[in-house]
């Protein structure tokens, strides 16, 4: 049984993993870059090792350093969290070779799902529906044209090794196919060193819905239902919820079965996510698989009642899953808001800085997975995610009301955050209706980014408080002056006393 786990990550996810380890009486080992010395994950852990400079490529991404820390600390296992080395097949392989348990899938599953063309082919073979398009990298431009004519415009050209919108082209007219193909290839080459691209049917009104799965090492795979992740900004998820308003019980059942089949197709074990694209007519297509824990996993935990990290560790311990598919159900509704250190009025520019004051929401149905604290300086080297606010309610309506209340209570001073922007989404009639797709933010930008009119009463109150604070501070500094003078007398005494004694 695993007794000590090294968490090869930082921030909220490192702390979140350590929480479960502590509940399981497993000793935790943190690794940290120099700038993260005071970071929460270092202090939460039982042990901590510095692994280099703030730049991730010189610390959190260096396999050798992580392995070295694991050996030094005597860790049995490594949990990679999300990001960093979490979907790095070489890292999974290396752990195996070193006799350290990698809490995640084998290199085979990571590799297969990591390449989009291979993943598509594997899914087709497993009978999981994929977005209509090519299954091979495009080499022949004429053939590409033919395929596009067959599936019909609009289509998407996507990089096989892609992510984050790079090497991606939306093609609306037949005559644009060839130029877009060339542009996508060269962009993919530059970004990933691999110019393989493929073509997919473009879904006009897409919903991003993903299924959480858990697979043990004894062949049992279950799904823990869906997460609706269509509130996105530039392919970055902003808000996630479970259940999805779109799915019917029948479609949910079918998609769940498809997700299980997808995982089985790559002999998957550990926690993973099958992402689907769903159109307004509830046609669903496999998009990709994330072979790791997701940022949004807490909404599933809340609705299904399962600690996913605990299950990952149990699976890594070769334990069979302690529940069957029929034991699982969705109970109530959960929404997660991602709180970022960013200026939502200035194109979501990251805003690192020092946290002056934090007040976190509490009460029934409110969970926070965060890692910042008063006095903490958010480093500019990493993702600006500072916390996830996860709320549960009996109904979606109650959940939205509760999220609104929790966002109201959440006070972070010293830096700019996305809290106000998230509150506006909770007030948005389209979001409230539940009838939204991945174009939601773009389609509602006027309401979401409208300027708030400064209210005269609030301005006057602010002025009075500024005056009051200014006034009080001056009084304080006078007291300080007195203290300092006393101090100086002490120092004078110290010197003379010292002299006499020599």
């Amino acid at each position: 049984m695993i007794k000590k786990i090294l968490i090869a990550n930082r921030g909220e996810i490192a702390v979140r993993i350590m929480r479960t380890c502590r509940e399981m009486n497993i000793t935790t080992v943190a690794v940290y870059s120099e700038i993260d010395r005071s970071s929460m994950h270092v202090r939460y852990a039982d042990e901590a090792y510095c692994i280099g400079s703030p730049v991730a490529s010189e610390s959190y991404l260096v396999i050798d350093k992580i392995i070295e820390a694991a050996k030094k600390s005597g860790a049995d296992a490594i949990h990679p969290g999300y990001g960093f080395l979490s979907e790095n097949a070489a890292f999974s392989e290396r752990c195996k070779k070193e006799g350290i348990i990698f809490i995640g899938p084998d290199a085979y599953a990571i590799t297969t799902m990591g390449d989009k063309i291979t993943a598509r082919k594997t899914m087709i073979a497993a009978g999981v529906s994929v977005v209509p398009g090519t299954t091979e990298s495009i080499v022949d431009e004429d053939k590409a044209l033919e395929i596009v004519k067959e599936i019909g415009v609009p289509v998407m050209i996507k990089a096989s090794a892609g992510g984050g919108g790079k090497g991606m082209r939306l093609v609306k007219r037949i005559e644009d196919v060839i130029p877009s193909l060339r542009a996508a290839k060269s962009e993919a080459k530059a970004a990933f060193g691999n110019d393989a691209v493929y073509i997919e049917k473009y879904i006009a009104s897409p919903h991003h819905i993903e299924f959480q799965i858990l697979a043990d090492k004894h062949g049992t795979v279950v799904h823990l239902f869906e997460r609706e992740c269509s509130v996105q900004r530039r392919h970055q998820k902003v808000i996630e919820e479970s259940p999805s308003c779109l799915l019917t019980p029948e479609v949910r059942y079918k998609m769940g079965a498809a997700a299980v089949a997808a995982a089985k197709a790559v002999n998957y074990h550990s926690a993973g996510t099958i992402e689907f694209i769903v159109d307004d007519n509830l046609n669903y297509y496999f998009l990709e698989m994330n072979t790791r824990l997701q940022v949004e996993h807490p909404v599933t935990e809340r609705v299904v009642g399962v600690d996913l990290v605990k299950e990952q560790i149990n699976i890594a311990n070769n334990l069979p899953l302690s529940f069957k598919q029929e034991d699982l159900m969705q109970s109530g509704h959960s929404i997660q808001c991602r709180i970022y250190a960013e200026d939502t009025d200035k194109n979501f520019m990251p805003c690192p800085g020092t946290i002056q004051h934090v007040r976190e929401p509490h009460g029934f149905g409110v969970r926070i997975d965060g890692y910042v604290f008063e006095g903490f300086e958010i480093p500019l080297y990493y993702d600006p995610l500072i916390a996830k606010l996860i709320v549960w309610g009996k109904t979606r309506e109650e959940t939205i009301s509760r999220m609104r209340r929790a966002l109201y209570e959440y006070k972070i001073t010293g830096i700019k955050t996305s809290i106000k922007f998230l509150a506006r989404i909770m007030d948005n009639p389209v979001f409230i209706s539940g009838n939204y797709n991945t174009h939601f933010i773009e389609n509602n930008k006027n309401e979401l980014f409208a300027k708030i009119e400064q209210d005269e009463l609030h301005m006057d109150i602010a002025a009075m408080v500024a005056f009051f604070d200014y006034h009080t501070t001056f009084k304080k500094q006078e007291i300080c002056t007195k203290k300092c003078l006393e101090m100086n007398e002490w120092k004078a005494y110290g010197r003379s006393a010292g002299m006499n004694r020599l």
Partner: protein
Amino acid sequence: MKIEMNIDNVNDYNIEFINKTDNLITYKVNNKLYTSDIVKVSEGLYSIILDGKSYNVEVYRDKTKKAFVIKTYMHSFNIDIIDTETKYLTNRVKGIEDEGGIVISTPMPGKVVKILVKVGDKVKEDQTVIIVEAMKMQSEYKVKKDRLIKEIKVKEGDTVVADQPLIIVE
């Protein structure tokens, strides 16, 4: 006590402390009177009760600049307090010229470090004409428009008092 502040792009906000009875403070804000109960809850956090309504106000203060970011729930305000020190610092950087544009003087006592012009010189807008040192800080005094140096009333090394005319321009 009376103070001026700039709030966001509204300049010359006037606040005056009128009185304090028990825990109620009356301020005059741009000619409006407010009597409220203000308490500091903890560092950077204030509670105000005004006409029975409860407001929470967060204060983020930049200690060196007398610049505040003040947040009520929906609103965030940038406030600069304009007191004697601020005015001095502003002037030190931006230079000063009297209203008529005739006399260049210093708002505080100091020592003339350097005179960069002589009588009859034609100087350009924003050109530094004299440097005065006070409290170990050298302040450059500039002209606001193109000017002609008419008279220099001090010499390098002189100690000057506040508001003493230094250079006459036209």
